[in-house]
């Protein structure tokens, strides 16, 4: 047969970088497919299992990157891997960020913890094509400074014009920045609120309060997008695990617009 959509392609791990104490960014290459920022792929650790991960490298990169937080069996196995090991990937799956809508508009990215993974390809893509888009602001929060991902890239982002606001729930060490949940810095970016496209991803509670706050602050509902998470087995709408209220998170998402999120049933919707 050879055409089963469930069979991953074997690829080699090129590099592994420790991002935070519980997150590693793995680079695999060469990349087996093109994708749109916000899409995800199914990553297989042979003999252990398969799990969905957001692609976190920019589409123009020749390799693929995933930032993976150690949570369970598959993620632990990836954390135990070393460069040269073989893993399987298939994808890209799902609906990415609405690049078309973003043209010429200001863009606000709001991330929480590991939730910045699907935002990073978007940010990098925006920066690479900055002439096509308006101003870019990023609000990013984590539980503690050491859990902020991609810290070594912050400087470069800012140099390239990103308004970057950081916050942590609990300060530690020489942290001089803001302390508090991410909603406390949402009013800082200086953007054209009514026109700005907002993209957010993070834990469900965060998304809930961010969405509320954004609307309060005057961002318009049809411009707000969030990337949701749910358990998945196939990534292509067949296994039934992420089927909520007529929508499949893997096919119709993971990126949903504000009104779609409000339509989703209790539980999967953060509301």
């Amino acid at each position, binding site marked *: *047969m*050879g*055409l*089963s*959509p*469930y*069979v*991953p392609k*074997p690829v080699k791990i090129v590099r592994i970088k420790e991002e935070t104490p519980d997150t590693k960014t793995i680079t695999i290459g060469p990349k087996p497919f093109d994708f749109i920022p916000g899409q995800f792929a199914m990553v*297989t*650790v*042979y*003999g*252990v*299992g*398969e*799990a969905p991960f957001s692609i976190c490298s920019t589409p123009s990169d020749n390799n693929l990157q995933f930032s993976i937080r150690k*949570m*369970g069996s598959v*993620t632990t196995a990836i954390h135990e891997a070393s460069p040269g090991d*073989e893993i*399987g990937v298939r994808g890209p799956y799902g609906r990415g960020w609405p690049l078309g809508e973003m043209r010429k508009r200001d863009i606000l990215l709001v991330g929480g913890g590991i939730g910045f993974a699907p935002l990073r390809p978007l940010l990098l893509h925006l920066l690479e094509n900055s002439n096509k888009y308006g101003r870019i602001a990023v609000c990013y929060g984590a539980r503690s400074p050491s859990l902020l991902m991609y810290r070594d890239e912050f400087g470069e982002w800012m140099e390239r014009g990103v308004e970057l606001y950081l916050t942590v729930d609990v300060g530690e060490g020489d942290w001089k920045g803001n302390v508090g949940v991410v909603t406390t810095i949402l009013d800082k970016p200086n953007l054209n609120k009514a026109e700005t496209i907002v993209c957010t991803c993070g*834990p*469900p509670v965060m998304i809930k309060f961010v969405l509320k706050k954004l609307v309060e602050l005057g961002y318009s509902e049809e411009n707000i997008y969030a990337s949701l*998470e*749910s*358990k998945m*087995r*196939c990534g*292509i*709408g*067949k*296994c*039934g*695990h992420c*089927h*909520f*209220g*007529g*929508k*499949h998170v893997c096919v119709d998402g993971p990126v949903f617009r504000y009104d779609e999120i409000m339509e989703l*049933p*209790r*539980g*999967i919707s953060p509301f």
Partner: protein
Amino acid sequence: MRMFSITEESLKVFLRELSLKHVLIAPFERDGYFEFDVLKNPDVINLNYTNTRLSPKRFFLPQRQLVFKHYPRKGFTEEPKEYSSFVLFGIRPCDASALSVLDNILLSPPYKDASYENRRKNAIVISLSCTKPMAECFCNVFETGPIRGMGEDLTFTPTRSGFIVEARTPRGVSVIEEFGKLFRKADGEMLEEYSRLISKVLDEMNRRLKVDKTRLIRIEKEAGEEFFQLNAQRCIECSLCSFACPLCYCFETEDCLEKDSYVRFRGWDTCISPLFTRMASGLDPRVTKADRLCHRFCHKLSRIPLAFNAYGCVGCGRCVSLCPAGIDIREVLKKWG
């Protein structure tokens, strides 16, 4: 003309020849109940059976099947081979319809479930109409029976003088052609009897339960907590309902290690299990049993319709009869239909 007829005698011949040419799967009685299995000897086929306890979905979606085998030393991934062709004779219209619903789900673009497609392609499905539906049956609600189903190639309906045979697909027609001498064109009288039978049995069932399925979409919004909580209290989370259902298609995967390879299997999962949606972080969009039970019904009656344009229940009545706790999908239909 797609309507044919066959005498009982010829049917026996038909089945015998069929079993010589193809792998034949048909209903028979074993240890006090009816089941489907590969039959070498078609004489044991029981044409008066009610329905099989378990649905024939396992011939298309096995309880466990190989997805791939990866040989790391050789650097290649092996997939299951083509499945051999088989004839599924005598399945009830509801179960045949379930296949057409599964087609909608598993073969919807852009991705097709390759192994299902392959099995489906290789199967000739011949249904046997119900003239005496069981007490649990309610296929009338979804128009998936009792006389004609939706997913079969041929429909056999018993009448006083042999069987009326309706070819439902080109493949069905080619089967008739293959065994041409055994079939006759159905005459007018038979056709009349056929249509009479259809309305008679349907009327009978409608008298038992009549529901407007298009209204079921309401359940998505109005799913009263109480109804589900009440039933959840009794549900023992055994997942029997999902396993018995001809339509429950959700699958789970499992990776294993073999001597020289890594393998992945897939197989039946059930949304009744608390593990179904629980994520690694411990978060679970459906924490309570009531949530899960509600999803089971919503999924069948409104969510599959929304996503795949077909109903996720064909009214076979298995879950009603087998549920140890007496949970009854018909109550949902009555409440929201």
